[in-house]
């Protein structure tokens, strides 16, 4: 797939989250798993050992458990912006499941796409956009552009030629003094 074919978007947030207070965006988690099949074993272990802790740590998230006979184990995450993410957790061990749940918990629910910019701002420039006339003397406004002073090259140091000429001049002056 070429870069153009990959869906892309700019950085977004849900309802200015974090500008004032922050709200965890994960609303609901639903575990669907089989009570007997081997693929759901890790999920069953996770539910037995760790799910209560997860639920206690995240009181804002509702957790549901739905046994489904002979189905692959999966977790359905619903977010406050209305998006739903389904993650297949079949044949995963409890540690891996924990890792994926952490990913779902820390997400905002906005679809994962290629980001065109790594930054979003509502006020892109505070000092104004730079132009060639920024920070220039206002006398330039009324000056005539055939003015020879403006055409002069501006530099801080003397050129090599000028330095040489000055040296020569100094030497000549010294010689003059000696002779007199």
């Amino acid at each position, binding site marked *: *797939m070429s870069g153009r074919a*990959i869906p892309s978007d700019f*950085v977004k*947030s849900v309802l*200015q*989250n*974090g*500008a004032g207070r*922050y709200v*965890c965006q994960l609303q609901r988690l639903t575990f669907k798993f089989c009570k007997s099949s081997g693929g759901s074993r890790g999920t069953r272990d996770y539910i037995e050992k760790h799910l209560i802790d997860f639920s206690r740590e995240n009181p804002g998230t509702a957790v549901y458990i739905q046994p489904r006979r002979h189905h692959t184990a999966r977790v359905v995450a619903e977010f406050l912006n209305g998006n739903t993410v389904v993650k297949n957790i079949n044949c995963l061990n409890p540690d891996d499941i924990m890792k994926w749940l952490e*990913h779902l*918990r*820390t*997400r*905002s629910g906005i679809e*994962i*796409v*290629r*980001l065109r910019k*790594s*930054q*979003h*701002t*509502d*006020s892109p420039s*505070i*000092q*104004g956009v730079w132009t060639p006339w920024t*920070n*220039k*003397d*206002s*006398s330039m406004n009324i000056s005539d552009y055939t003015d020879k002073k403006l055409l002069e090259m*501006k*530099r*801080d140091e003397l050129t090599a030629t000028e330095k040489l000429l000055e040296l020569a001049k100094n030497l000549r002056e010294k010689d003059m003094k000696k002779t007199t």
Partner: protein
Amino acid sequence: MFLKNCANVATRLMGISRVHSSAIVPSSLQVRKNIQTEVENQISQGTAGRLFAVVHIKGSQYKVTEGDIIVLGKYHLEADIGEKIRLNKILLIGSSDFSLVGRPVLKENMAKVEATVIEKTLGHEKIFFNYIRRKSHNRMRIRQEAMTHLRINSIELNSLE
């Protein structure tokens, strides 16, 4: 720190030309002091307006202002979502009238930039495919990189020292 950057400040506050090197006035101490008091007044009276800052986070520099979102690529911050963090390395802070440049960073009590971790997510699936013709070699790897989204909450400028 401040006096070094006076020329920049002067150009903004007093409309002095930066072009004609012979005409740059702020070499005189009085002009510098005037500018300094002017900036101090703006800070103390709160008339500096909206501020922006250039912050240094893990090898990258970001130009931020209040309310921005920045995405830190390829890693997750240790802070949990919703936690407020302070960005300590401020390279530059500016308003519409002046800019203060650190050498290389501003002193800690001069300015304060705070941010909230709003999201720790993964990037889109990047496909890494390599193929050598006539050698029956092809590999496809799919990677998702970690990303941390920060919301800039406040940029405060307290004093010049």
